[in-house]
């Protein structure tokens, strides 16, 4: 049975070896244990023994070649006659190169993938022996002479001085016959780069750990990272609560489940792009034919020294909402928040920085005639001019206030705006 001669694995971390020389010639009779060829690795040079008896045939790698471990380089056959001409596919010469053996850029170090051609040491067309220095190579580590590795004539040079040639790429052709017209080329495209060593077949691995599900996006915090427990974050997300409200309301961090009730009390706001079902928006509309508010404001300023009409508006709205509370008076883009204490003294209404319980959106000076803005963080009461009177819209969610309370709020506010003096009664 013919026996393949392969490049042996000779070291713990070696993947190729250079054939220094064959100690038997093709057709020679060999006995198992005979020294067959000499190999050089990064560590040492050593003889490799024949692993079978027979005749050396099918030699496909010559002295000087670097051969990957495991690659067949010859065969030990039962007869010398079996040595058919090498069936190895001849590399297609790019530009009608002379026939002969290609000399490649050798691997000279463990982690080197190219070498710079310093210069040719044999004249083009001259005769060379296998041990004659052919060219000089510079790697990151050193400069060294590379022997021809074959006997014949330097028929072609495929790289010029200064070219950086990948390991394994042909740099010269040595022909058996004296070449008629030797060829000199610069480095050609990387056509004959050695095939990468096939990776050992890996055993399939099942990744037992389940792929982590994409994490749900938390609502963007108000001004930087909010310190809150994972559980509170989850519950807030589920209930459509925004932890930013705790920050806005000035509650100290970190937040835990114990802060949930406070957060709920601050009111719900649909958290965008979280997949949480949006909260149903409720809307109430009221109208009054006339409004004495402007006159009332004038009167209050003159007789009671209450010059801030916004504070008056907030006071009326707060009383309707249920004081004590905080009312924002919004006249886009301006927004002022007022603290409305219990009782009816409008002079006690003061500006604050707390979060509002109700937004009074004053659109009287705009041409907006109808609104449907949906639920916001807190109920929004929009005031619009309609002729001599006003149109009032209250938008809120069931979570913010029960509808009964909303009706009372809107009715009372409408009454107060129709006749502000009623507030004082």
């Amino acid at each position: 049975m013919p026996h393949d001669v392969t490049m042996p694995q000779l070291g713990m971390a070696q993947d190729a070896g250079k054939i220094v020389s064959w100690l038997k010639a093709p057709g020679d009779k060999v006995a198992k244990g005979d020294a067959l060829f000499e190999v050089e690795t990064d560590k040492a040079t050593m003889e490799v023994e024949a692993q079978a008896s027979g005749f050396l045939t099918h030699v496909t790698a010559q002295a000087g070649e670097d051969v990957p471990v495991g690659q067949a380089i010859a065969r030990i056959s039962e007869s010398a006659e079996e040595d058919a001409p090498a069936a190895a596919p001849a590399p297609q010469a790019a530009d009608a190169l002379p026939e002969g053996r290609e000399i490649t850029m050798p691997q000279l170090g463990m982690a080197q993938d190219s070498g710079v051609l310093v210069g040719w040491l044999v004249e083009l067309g001259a005769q060379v022996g296998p041990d004659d220095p052919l060219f000089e190579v510079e790697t990151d580590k050193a400069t060294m002479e590379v022997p021809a590795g074959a006997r014949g004539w330097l028929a072609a040079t495929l790289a010029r001085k200064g070219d950086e040639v990948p390991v394994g790429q042909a740099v010269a052709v040595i022909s058996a016959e004296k070449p008629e017209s030797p060829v000199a080329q610069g480095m050609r495209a990387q056509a004959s780069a050695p095939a990468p060593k096939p990776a050992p077949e890996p055993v399939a691995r099942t990744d037992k750990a389940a792929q982590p599900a994409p994490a749900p996006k938390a609502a963007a915090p108000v001004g930087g990272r909010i310190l809150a427990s994972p559980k509170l974050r989850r519950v807030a997300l589920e209930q459509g609560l925004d932890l930013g409200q705790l920050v806005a309301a000035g509650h100290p961090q970190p937040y835990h489940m114990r802060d949930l009730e406070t957060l709920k009390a601050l009111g719900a706001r649909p958290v965008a792009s979280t997949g949480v079902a949006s909260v149903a928006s409720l809307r109430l509309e009221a109208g009054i034919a006339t409004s004495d508010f402007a006159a009332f404001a004038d009167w209050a300023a003159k007789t009671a020294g209450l010059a801030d009409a916004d504070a008056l508006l907030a006071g009326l709205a707060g009383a309707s909402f249920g004081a004590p509370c905080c009312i924002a008076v919004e006249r886009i883009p301006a927004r002022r928040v007022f603290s409305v204490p219990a009782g009816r003294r409008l002079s006690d209404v003061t500006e604050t920085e707390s979060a509002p319980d109700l937004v009074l959106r004053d659109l009287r000076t705009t041409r907006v005639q109808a609104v449907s803005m949906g639920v916001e963080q807190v109920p929004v009461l929009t005031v619009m001019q309609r002729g001599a009177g006003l149109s009032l819209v209250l938008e809120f969610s069931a979570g913010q206030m029960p509808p009964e309370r909303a009706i009372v709020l809107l009715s009372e506010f409408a009454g107060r705006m129709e006749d502000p003096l009623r507030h004082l009664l």
Partner: protein
Amino acid sequence: MAKAKSNTEDYLRMYTQMVRIRTFEDNANQLYLSAKMPGLTHMYSGEEAVAVGICEALTDADRITSTHRGHGHCVAKGAEFKAMFCELLGKAEGYCRGKGGSMHIADQSHGNLGANAIVGGSMGIATGSALRAKLQGSDDVTVCFFGDGATAQGLLYEVMNMAALWKLPVIYACENNGYSEYTKTEEIAAGSITARAEAFGIEAHQVDGQDVLEVNDLARKLVARARKGEGPFFIELMTYRYHGHHVGDINREYYRSKAEEKEWKDNRDPIIRFRAHLVREGIATEADLDALNAEIEKDAAEAVAYALDAAYPDAAEVDMHVYAA
């Protein structure tokens, strides 16, 4: 079982087993050199007479513990090529379903408690097996194979002490192949190795490990005596490993010369010596033995081909056998 056979059968079996080991190793070496085998391995070639001479004195009920250089013990104790090559290649049909590899082959069915990749790691196991035999009134004997390098492990002296105290049926078989990995034994071992066993009152012998008949004769006598409660015993078997410490240890002239290797191979080879003996005594002809060799080579080639084609374990086996049910 040995008694039932004629010498001829015993001798031919010993020859066969030695050739099987050599052939197995030649193939394993080829698998490594041709990069078809993952990891690396340690060749038993040259030491065949030790494993065969001893294991031919044992029954399947007798236990052995083996070493990183363990293919020889495994074959000698009765293992099959196919499951062994499959194990070397990490295939599902290997003796350990590909989980042990070269250095951990265990073959429970023939009493091989396993190779061990810790030098000296199995000395406790072997002695414990012998303790179990004594406690359970069983007459099996355990042989603990280890190399000269392992004599530097303290565990040996702890367990020899207990084995001697409790007269355990264990035989410590020290394969002295002259090298402790890459270092000459004389550089790592002070004094006499057998004298160390003798210090515990253990009867110790030194024997030519390249002479299978001498090894086997001694082993039979000691095994029989160990069965009767006269153990433990210690044998130092003078032998030689033809390869380096492992298959990749090829360039080794810095610690031993080629001339030395050649001397052992040419003049002291256990197979060549025994073959000559068989022919000389008229037990077999050269032609008989050539035919036997050819058959073994064929077996090995078939087993290698089978193992190369065999399937790797399913990925689902990766966390199987961490715990026993």
